[in-house]
């Protein structure tokens, strides 16, 4: 708790700095795309949010596995803390994707492999949060949500690689690639990297803050239970 208390202000400050710098750079100081016009500015929100939605679930998978294998309580609480943060990222990705898709594809939504698997991931996030709330015993809740997290990981992976697996649908392939030909142009790439750093730092900050809250909530429950027994 002491280490995280020392880290939190730095992480929060860095995330605000990166998000502000990346957002201003991308919105005000990058040109329009020759095909997509000014809608290309949505990339600075859509791509980082979608990345964090998927990576957030992967983080939850890792911490859930640590809980299942090592019974480490803080890892289960970290997974619980990440749920609402990941859900918000998926909603941002879906909303910005629809707003971007309408002028570019002529539709807000299509049952394309990537979009559909991403929507299912959103439903898994909702189910995960609901399951934590529905089960009273915290260890049982951690067990059940960990299993749900493992099952949902299929859709986290599908969301990322659906375009490669099926090679169909409206959604394009990865915006960021090690292949220079496929990667977005440098003028968009650099502010995008800053925005991605901002979203990663914000995710870590919020998960840390919310994990501390969950640890306090757990301690409060045990103290109140002790008070009732006395």
């Amino acid at each position, binding site marked *: 708790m002491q280490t995280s208390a020392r880290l939190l202000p730095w992480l929060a400050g860095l995330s605000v700095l990166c998000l502000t710098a990346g957002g201003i750079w991308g919105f005000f100081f990058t040109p329009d795309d020759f095909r997509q016009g000014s809608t290309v500015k949505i990339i600075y929100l859509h791509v980082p949010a979608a990345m964090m939605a998927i990576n957030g679930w992967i983080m939850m998978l890792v911490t859930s596995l640590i809980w299942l294998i090592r019974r480490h309580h803080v890892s289960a609480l970290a997974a619980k803390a990440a749920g609402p943060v990941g859900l*918000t990222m998926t909603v941002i990705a879906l909303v910005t994707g629809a707003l971007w898709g309408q002028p570019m594809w002529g539709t807000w939504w299509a049952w394309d492999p990537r979009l559909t698997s991403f929507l299912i991931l959103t439903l898994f996030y909702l189910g995960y949060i609901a399951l934590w709330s529905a089960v009273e015993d915290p260890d049982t809740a951690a067990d059940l949500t960990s299993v749900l997290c493992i099952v949902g990981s299929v859709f986290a992976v599908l969301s990322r690689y659906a375009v490669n697996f099926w090679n169909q649908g409206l959604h394009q392939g990865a915006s960021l690639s090690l292949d220079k030909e496929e990667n977005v142009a440098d003028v968009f790439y650099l502010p995008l990297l800053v925005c991605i750093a901002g979203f990663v730092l914000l995710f870590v900050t919020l998960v840390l803050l919310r994990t501390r809250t969950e640890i306090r909530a757990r*301690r409060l429950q045990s103290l109140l239970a002790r008070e009732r027994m006395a």
Partner: protein
Amino acid sequence: MPDLGKYAVAVLGSYGATVFLLAVLVGVSLWRSARMRRALREVEARQGTTHG
């Protein structure tokens, strides 16, 4: 302000929705953290226990 042309609604809508959702998430996280810290402090003071 850059000229967003006919896509102004899509671009500004995206930025507005993102800022709103992130603000709600950060606000709720901070509010819940403060509320839990206060509640724990009260119970610890009542029971004469401390936490690290």
